[in-house]
């Protein structure tokens, strides 16, 4: 019981400190906004309005955070197993491309087969793209940082450069539009859905401009599954053991190679799902530029979430809100580069305040004996 109170307390303190660091970052951001001769108040109210101003804004914040939660998870899981995955970007591309191709290529499949097929194909290919560096690491001692960087670039060549040209039909640098049977359900369309349509008040989602789609739910489910996997299953136990101490794990009868390959495969699959969501939910095709650096932002998301799957959800939401609110800031006259600068400031301060958190914990513990 006491335990629970303590847990809630820690979570609240964590949230409070994160909020504090965001506020400090925004205060520093004022300096840059002033340099552009805009009003910081207008700018920040736009940031807030854009991210949380109304129901639609909130849902769209969730939408923007979806790929970030997933790439964040794709970095977090291997991190727990002692691996640094810089390859979420490539895994996302491979997954998104595969889903995009399956989504338009198979024209005569019913929706209940086509969609799962497209999703699973994307997830699987993403998984393979992640599993490959895991395999190289386990069997040939190839450092995963190098191999994932290399595979990112190879994925760009394969999908954006070669793949799109191979399948392209219009002038867009994209694969052809996917069929409706392969599209992920949008919240907007839920009213018309056979099952979801029956949920009371579902029509509140029927608003132009709500872009949230079902992949957000998948992202949350993924986080929960990964949390369960890491902390409730023997597999997770083994992965974490390998991550902390490979020799100790081996002593405990754990095969480190298995953990490495599996962690990377799952991570690739999750990053692949990020790509699947962007292709089948957001853009309705695989499109050049849709990766938008999510794989790299995912690194920050993962670590700000302390590589804990549930923490990653919050990390993803933070970055989603910054992205969604950042766009609105542009409408308030703040150029996009200032938005980037403010994002970077938030990262700095959230990371630095982590330290304060550790310090506070220490002081508190010390207070206990005095």
């Amino acid at each position: 019981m006491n335990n629970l109170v303590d847990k809630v307390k820690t979570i609240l303190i964590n949230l409070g400190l994160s909020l504090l660091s965001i506020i400090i970052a925004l205060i520093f951001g004022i300096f840059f906004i002033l340099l552009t001769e805009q009003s910081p108040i207008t700018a920040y109210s736009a940031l807030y309005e854009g991210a949380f101003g109304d129901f639609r804004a909130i849902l769209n914040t969730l939408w923007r955070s979806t790929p970030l939660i997933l790439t964040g998870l794709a970095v977090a899981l291997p991190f727990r197993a002692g691996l640094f995955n810089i390859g979420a970007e490539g895994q996302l591309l491979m997954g998104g491309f595969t889903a995009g191709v399956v989504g338009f290529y198979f024209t005569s499949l019913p929706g209940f087969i086509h969609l799962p097929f497209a999703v699973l194909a994307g997830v699987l290919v993403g998984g393979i793209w992640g599993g490959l560096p895991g395999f190289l690491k386990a069997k040939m001692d190839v450092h995963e940082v190098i191999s994932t960087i290399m595979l990112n670039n190879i994925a760009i060549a394969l999908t954006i450069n070669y793949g799109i040209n191979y399948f392209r039909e219009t002038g867009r640098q994209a694969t052809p539009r996917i069929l409706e049977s392969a599209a992920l359900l949008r919240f907007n369309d839920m009213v018309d859905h056979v099952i979801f349509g029956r949920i009371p008040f579902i029509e509140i989602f029927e608003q132009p401009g709500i872009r949230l789609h079902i992949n957000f739910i998948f992202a949350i489910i993924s986080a929960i599954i990964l949390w369960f996997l890491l902390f409730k299953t023997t597999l997770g136990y083994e992965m974490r053991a390998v991550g902390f101490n490979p020799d100790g794990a081996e002593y405990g009868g754990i095969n480190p190679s298995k953990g490495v390959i599996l962690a990377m495969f799952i991570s690739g699959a999750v990053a692949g799902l990020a790509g699947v969501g962007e292709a089948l939910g957001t853009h309705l095709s695989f499109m050049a530029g849709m990766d938008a650096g999510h794989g790299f932002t995912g690194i920050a998301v993962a670590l700000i979430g302390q590589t804990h799957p549930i923490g990653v959800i919050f990390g993803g939401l933070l970055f989603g809100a910054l992205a969604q609110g950042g766009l609105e800031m542009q409408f308030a006259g703040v150029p996009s580069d200032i938005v980037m600068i403010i994002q970077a400031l938030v990262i700095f301060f959230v990371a630095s305040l982590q330290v304060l958190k550790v310090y506070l914990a220490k002081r508190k513990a010390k207070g206990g004996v005095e």
Partner: protein
Amino acid sequence: MAREEYFLDMRNITKLFPGVKANDNVNLSIKTGEIHALVGENGAGKTTLMNILYGLYDPDGGEIYYKGKKVKLKDPQKAIDLGIGMVHQHFMLVQPLTVTENIILGNEPRKNKGLMLDRRKAKKEVQDISKKYGLFVDPDAKIRDISVGMQQRVEIIKTLYRGAELLIFDEPTAVLTPQEIKELFEIFRSLKKQGKTIIFITHKLKEVKAISDRITVLRDGKSVDTVETNEVTEADVAELMVGRQVLLKVEKTPAQPTEEILNIKNLKVDDNRGLPAVKDVSLSVKKGEILGIAGVEGNGQSELVEALTGLREIKSGSIELRNKEISNYTARKIKREKVAHIPEDRHKHGLIMDFDLKENTILGYHDLDKFSKKGIMNYENIAKYTTKLIKEYDIRGAGMQSFAKNLSGGNQQKLIVAREFSHDPELLIASQPTRGVDVGSIEFIHKQIIDRRDNGAAVLLVSAELSEILSLSDRIAVIFEGEIVDILEASETDEMELGKLMTGSKADEAGGETLE
């Protein structure tokens, strides 16, 4: 003697750590030129006190007088400047660097006072010191390639190189072979002769008696007493430490061996560098007996144990457990055959330091049905089980949510013992089971091992501690350069004979004779 006349006088030192008062008004007074032993149970606060003296920790209270003057030790540089040197419990050596590089680090001789290292001069200085104090080392060897005993010498030379007058040794003997301990004490005497003052932490009371002039005892962070060594017995000191009488001698009944359980035939194993480490070893262990393996460290016993426990590939030969060939089994499969293993390096192998106690108590057993089913962990059961172990084995200083790294060494060792003993092993392989552990815990662990034997388990005991081997084993196999040179009845041999066998029959004077 007035307090000002002490070489070093630490007064009312207090140090707080989250949840612990590691030092509570500790007093320690050291005379010039003495060897002063600092003893106490695991977690009593010895290391903390020494870290304060070396400038690594800021004390929360108290004063330090050095050569009669009050000093403030804000960082190690200050301590070094004053002439304090410390050989840490966990060596502070940079593995990929050479002996010389480690010694000169931070105080490097340079060519013409420029940037460039003067390696020749450095080497010469190292050689000079090593000659002067009889500390022989290979100046060009990399740390990772030399033995623990050698590494310790490097640590000592490091302090002397900086002109230390007061040398602190934190459990220097825990990792040494009897031969190396003997050599270390020679070094102590030589240092003392040169006028150096020494503080020496150990858990081995025999050593305290053998080398120290005076003893200070800590208990629960407080200084209990300081006594003249020649006025007390080992038992007295043990009692001061623990606060009760301790059995220093193991009590056991004669073994009643039954059938053979482990049978090793012509086993050959290579070491990390691919050189033969175990050469043609044949051994058998019976249920109900303790077979001790005596040997100077580095003679293949580590590789032998790793081969038996599935952590190292074997070159040739066979390992049979209950007449079943297990030489190609994985570590996990061997565990399932009711083989328990207390590894020699608890930090490297025995524990996941960043796991909490709960997760550590099931390491290697995590897929047993009671801990997990169908790949899902049953943390409720695990918690119950951990609570039980903590209680049964008296693991102190932590609840099951705390991390293994925050346990003291003695308690870490107890945790491993608890885990390995609690699954009714039929074969127990114990490597250095009491290394770095205080007398109370040694008593406990020894008792547990004998209990196992009396319950019909076979025990294979590997220890560098001859007294431990002699008092626990029923039979003793001596290993030398990867081969079993002899197998003796424990009751029919002594340290003298073992010592000779352990160093090859030629070296007559070597071995683990008494320390004086």
